[in-house]
């Protein structure tokens, strides 16, 4: 399906490239939406379980599972054009790990510490501390992925 040529490209006899197209943007959006929903529904399910709605919880868990699968499906198409967080092309483990190293480095090095500073400035010391805690773990993840990169070589 991904390789279905558009009318114009078909006329020229070649396959269109996904990178930079509207469809590429739509796939990235769809990935963001479904990956978030999967996480969100898992969270909702745990609360439903505690509040005593086991049926609701299992519905939510099943939906979360499906959403996670949808997200995988979006990635299937995004491999070549680039995964949504760094834009790097992925597929085989060596490339995947390289992308993952970049993702962790980005968050730990810039984004999260900056978020923590903003939270402090805006008067949310607990949220700042949360960002800092996550940043610490991210540093650690970065190191683990670095060594995984060695293993994958």
């Amino acid at each position, binding site marked *: 399906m991904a390789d279905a040529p558009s009318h114009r490209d078909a006329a020229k006899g070649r396959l269109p490239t996904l990178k930079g197209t509207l469809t590429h943007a739509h796939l990235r959006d769809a990935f963001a939406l479904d990956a978030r929903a999967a996480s969100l529904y898992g969270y909702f399910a745990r609360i439903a379980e*505690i509040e005593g709605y086991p049926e609701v919880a299992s519905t939510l868990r099943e939906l979360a599972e499906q959403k996670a699968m949808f997200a995988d499906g979006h990635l299937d198409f995004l491999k070549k054009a680039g995964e949504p967080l760094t834009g790097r092309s992925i597929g085989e483990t060596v490339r995947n790990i390289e992308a993952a190293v970049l993702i962790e480095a980005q968050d730990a090095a810039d984004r999260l510490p900056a978020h923590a500073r903003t939270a402090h400035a805006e008067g949310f010391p*607990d949220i700042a501390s*949360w960002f800092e805690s996550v940043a*610490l*773990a991210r540093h650690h993840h970065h190191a683990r992925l670095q060594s995984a990169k060695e293993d994958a070589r």
Partner: protein
Amino acid sequence: MTTQNSGYSAADIKVLTGLEAVRQRPAMYVGSTGPSGALHLVYELVQNSVDEAMAGHCSRISVRLDGDGHITVSDNGRGIPVGIHPTEGRPAIEVVLTTLHAGGKFGSPSASGSTAYGIAGGLHGVGVSCVNALSDDFTVTVQRDGSTHAIAFHRGALVQPLARTGNADQTGTSVRFRPDSTIFEGVTLDVRTLRRRLQEQAFLHPGLTVALTDARGREDKLETFRYDGGIASFVGHLVADRTPLHPQPIAISGEHEGHQLEVAIQWTTAYAEETLAYVNAIFTSQGGSHVEGLRSALTRVVNARARTEGMLHDDADEQIAGYDVREGLVAVLSLKMHDPEYEGQTKSTLTSHSATAAVEQVVEAALERWMTEHPTAATAIVGKALEASRARAAARRASERARYQSIDQVVSKEVYKQQFGIRSKNWHQSASWITDDAILSTQADMWDGPDDARVLDVCCGSGVVGNAFRGTVGHITGLDLTPEMIAMAETRLDVVQQGDVYDMPFEDNQFDLACNREVLHLLPRPDIPVGQIFRVLKPGGTFIVSQLVPYGPEDAPWFFRIVKKKQPLFFNNLMAEDMVKLLEDAGFVDITMKELICWEDIDIWIDTWETPNLHRHEIRQLYYDAPAEVRRVHPFEIRPDGGILDQWRWVVLRGRKPSA
């Protein structure tokens, strides 16, 4: 003997294929090859005896533990049949002990009305043959029809065919076995858990006597359980160390479409909920549909009562959530039903839908009636739920207010007073870590100053931290915010002053030693009180502070979520390195740090008003679902009953204010 054995071996081959599967994958049948698996073997046999009791044929069950690892489970039931099995052509007992899924409980009760058991809990795992397969010595003695018979096995293989060994003037079955040490390697039996389990069975079956003899030591220890009061006395037993809201447990029994139900409930002034649920006398540790039925009945009745009594704010459409209704609840539920359905092999969760409706209807009707008959108790129960619900909202507001006010570093004392006032007093007196000797003595040991020193215990709480220095110092002053804590601290310290850590009511250079434990993480700006402590210390004075910290980057975010759910005023997830930096930045020098660990039952820690019931459940869930990265660095244990023991990491730091 040898020829006889070879004569049996042909028939044994077929049987052994079944039991060999058990030996190959023991964990699949008994849960694990660790301590809980070994316990499971005992339960399996006890459960068979309990089934005899439920069928009305047994009044006494005894368990005996011997020093050589043998365990004996005996009852005075009917005795396992010893006659020749009509289709197998072997003694029925041999078939039962060597065949998976053989026994008297498989017949359909409706077909002929003549099965040996009505409702039975047994078939726990796969029955007694499983225990046989996993034992290196397994001997059964049966007393039946005036005779005593015996049969013996080794790892599921017959070594002593059924033989009459004497006369008998009573009936019963006695199984003496030893878990196979090649499977349960180095496992010792958890006697405490076994004891609790046996006591539970005595509670669940009024009139049944359950005895436990521990003959492993130099003297035999015999304990006998018998409770004619049934599950109401079970609740009474559970409530014993709490304060009940109403004097007697509410005892409910009833029947609904083939479900026999007994429930006993009692609300207490505690915060945690304890609900134990059983289906056909088997403990369902993760609850399930029967517990859901109980919960929704309680929520509905308490809300209805609150509304008719005019206790809810109608204009705000106020409702009491289920987890607030269950705050401080102690409940035991025993359901008997045919063909219960469970999730998974270990029967930890009941999934039969019919149970929800049955429990809900019986409990709702009975509780409503009880509340009408006991209006004072009913008001206390509803009032407590309402208080829980409103306290939760207040706690949320408190943390929000603290947050906004911290922008300009004005922190409302009221917020902290609200949090650490009267409701935290009980907890302050009971939490074991607060008086943990290791932490207190580590702090005290770090003090090497003169014995006439003046000490300041900052945020002294009940005063135990300052008091730990007693004998090595001269005079101890406490500082705290709430009148409740000050009153408590005054029993331990020389003088206690009411005041604020952001602006301490003391002149500069007053104290030789300042101590503080577990406070800095609760303040939006921990650097301010550390600076204040530096100010009020004399030059050369010592600051000793301890703090609960995560193990490392792996568990830091997880730990953050747990503590934040426990304590809405948690603002700083301080790491050990952050503590050092806080002291350095304030000007302290010669900083040393000690680390110590302390096992803590988290129930003590989260059983407090500041932790809403929902959060308590979420905290437990965080432990149950802890990511592998967290588990690798942060030790904790989940007990079979779902309880959690956490290994806390404390750091104790000492810094010195430079001499002038």
